[in-house]
């Protein structure tokens, strides 16, 4: 049999190489936890870990796309919350799901338009997040609502210990990674992310790329809302709040530069797994939760320090 060379792009291949240290760390940490903590390797714990990772992976994937473009999306939490609220307050299943996803898309597109109009992404998405959260609270002021049974059945399905939401999240991540490296859109994303002025002057469709990136982030946040419903069976305008900083953290630990144009969406997977496993270990070892914040902060700084050092070495 002849070796078939996949026609993968240089970006794709280099992104496969780039994250190997992180992959190794994630695998080692997971293996270490499984060996040291019997409770960690129980199916309950594994399923729990995967189920909790599903929404984070989805949100962080969208966040990664936006950060690659040199932006940031602080509205993902509010959009996620709105999606859960819409599903929990709409009777017809297809309408509920369509409404949630459309809302995510619309919020993302609005962010994209704002950024294109020149509003700083941090401010644009922060303010848009406020608006979206307000709308969600108007629709459902306290957590609850009634999620259609069919939706719950669909999102909570499990293959053995693996929740469907997790599989879907990993699948979506892989798809988005592939698009960012193998589609023309992805190439443009990297270019515009690195130097948007250049891209504009060259007549590259920066507007379309930007709009698409933010819309994707909004859509994925809404998707993540479904993954949250798989755990909570209910709507909650505030349920996305923790994902804002968590998704940014995952993206940064994945080594995607805040300045845009550098990094790989694929690395979000080991980054999120690493953070999830550390969280789970803290939980299972009964570590005083007060130390949780301190630990998270230190991990972030350490990771950034390492990336910074690596980038410095790269430079001639």
């Amino acid at each position, binding site marked *: 049999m002849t070796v078939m060379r996949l026609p993968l792009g240089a970006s794709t291949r280099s992104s496969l190489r780039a994250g190997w240290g992180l992959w190794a760390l994630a695998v080692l940490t997971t293996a270490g936890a499984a060996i040291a903590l019997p409770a960690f390797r129980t199916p309950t714990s594994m399923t729990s870990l995967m189920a909790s990772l599903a929404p984070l992976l989805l949100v962080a994937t969208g966040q990664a796309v936006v950060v690659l473009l040199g932006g*940031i999306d602080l509205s993902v939490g509010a959009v996620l919350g709105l999606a859960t609220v819409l599903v929990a307050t709409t009777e017809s299943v297809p309408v509920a799901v369509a409404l949630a996803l459309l809302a995510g898309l619309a919020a993302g597109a609005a962010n994209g338009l*704002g950024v294109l*109009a*020149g*509003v*700083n992404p*941090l*401010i*644009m998405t*922060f*303010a*848009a*997040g*406020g*608006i979206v*959260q*307000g*709308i969600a*609270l*108007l629709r459902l*002021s306290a957590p609850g609502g009634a999620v259609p049974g069919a939706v719950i059945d669909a999102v909570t399905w499990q293959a053995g210990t693996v929740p469907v939401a997790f599989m879907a999240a990993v699948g979506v991540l892989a798809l988005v990674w592939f698009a960012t490296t193998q589609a023309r859109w992805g190439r443009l994303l990297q270019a515009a992310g690195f130097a948007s*002025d250049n891209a504009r002057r060259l007549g590259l469709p920066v507007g379309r790329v930007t709009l698409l990136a933010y819309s994707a982030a909004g859509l994925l946040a809404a998707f993540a809302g479904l993954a949250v419903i798989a755990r909570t069976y209910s709507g909650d305008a505030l349920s996305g709040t923790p994902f804002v*900083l968590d998704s*940014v*953290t995952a993206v*940064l630990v994945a080594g995607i530069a*805040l*300045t845009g144009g550098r990094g790989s969406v694929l690395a979000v997977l080991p980054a999120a797994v690493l953070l999830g496993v550390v969280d789970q270990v803290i939980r299972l070892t009964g570590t*005083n939760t*007060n*130390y*949780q*914040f*301190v*630990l*998270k*902060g*230190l991990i*972030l*700084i350490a990771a*950034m*320090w390492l990336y*910074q050092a690596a980038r*410095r070495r790269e430079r001639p």
Partner: protein
Amino acid sequence: MTTAGLPARRHRLDPHLAVSYALAAVCLVLLGTTTSRGFDPDRILGLLGNQAALGIVALGQTLVLLVRGLDLSVGSVISLSTVVTAAVMDGNPDRIAVAVAATVALGAVVGLANGLLVAYAGIAPLLVTLAVGTIVQGATYVYTNGQPRGGIAGGFRGLADDRIAGTPLPWSLLLWLGVWGIVALTLYRTVAGRRYYAVGANPRAAWLSGVPTTRHSVVAYIASGVLASVAGLHLAAYTGSPSLTVGTSYTLMSIAAAVIGGVALTGGGGGPTGTFAGVLVLVFLGTVLETMDVPAAVQLIVQGGVVIVMMLVNRRLDPARRSRA
């Protein structure tokens, strides 16, 4: 070509300032006309005095934004400050000075940590201050085990509650204006202050020209940490009790105030005068919405909308900034 010189200055009002103060004026008119004691200076001044914490922390944020930074740790520093003030003071008026010194020193230390990590380790400010803020928050929990101790001495509370004898001017407003004065004097009227703008406009170019850029960045973060702790002192005096969470909302509010006032997140543009207007807008608008009994959800929507509109306006005013956005 002649060797004619150039006019020294354009006699033109900075459009960012014009717009942000116009918006503040509109909000003030709204505030005045929608309530019974409308424009009573006693009321307006009191209102501003009560928001001195936001005013002060936003000035620190401005300094950091000017040098292309961002300080997401101010909220945690504010909370920690109320906790430390109460613990050190322990309700004893004799210990006010020690408590203030300890709190400000702590704010300076956190700012120094931010500054060193940004300037020397070269890590993105968003990240450094996010991480340091998380650590500070964790440290506050570890230190108090969730139960803040101590108390605020009655005399100290005058800082927030009392007005300067014979005037309607609250001490807290004076504190805010004083801080504004120092920041404004430094930035607008000193040689060192001018260099902040140079660092923000192009750190590499400023460095090559012999400007001590790292020192300027570090000082900006220290100032932000110190001003956050001063805001914490004001809040401790204001509420009379320590709190683990009181600072949370100040992080993004301080950034919002600065950008509404025309401070560029890309560094080198805007200043304390604009930020002052930004705080006025947020305070007046918030008060109007609250007193008009607008539901919290709608308040969120309105505030988000105002911030976006202001950013769009600022963008229009300054196409040159587009290239650096």
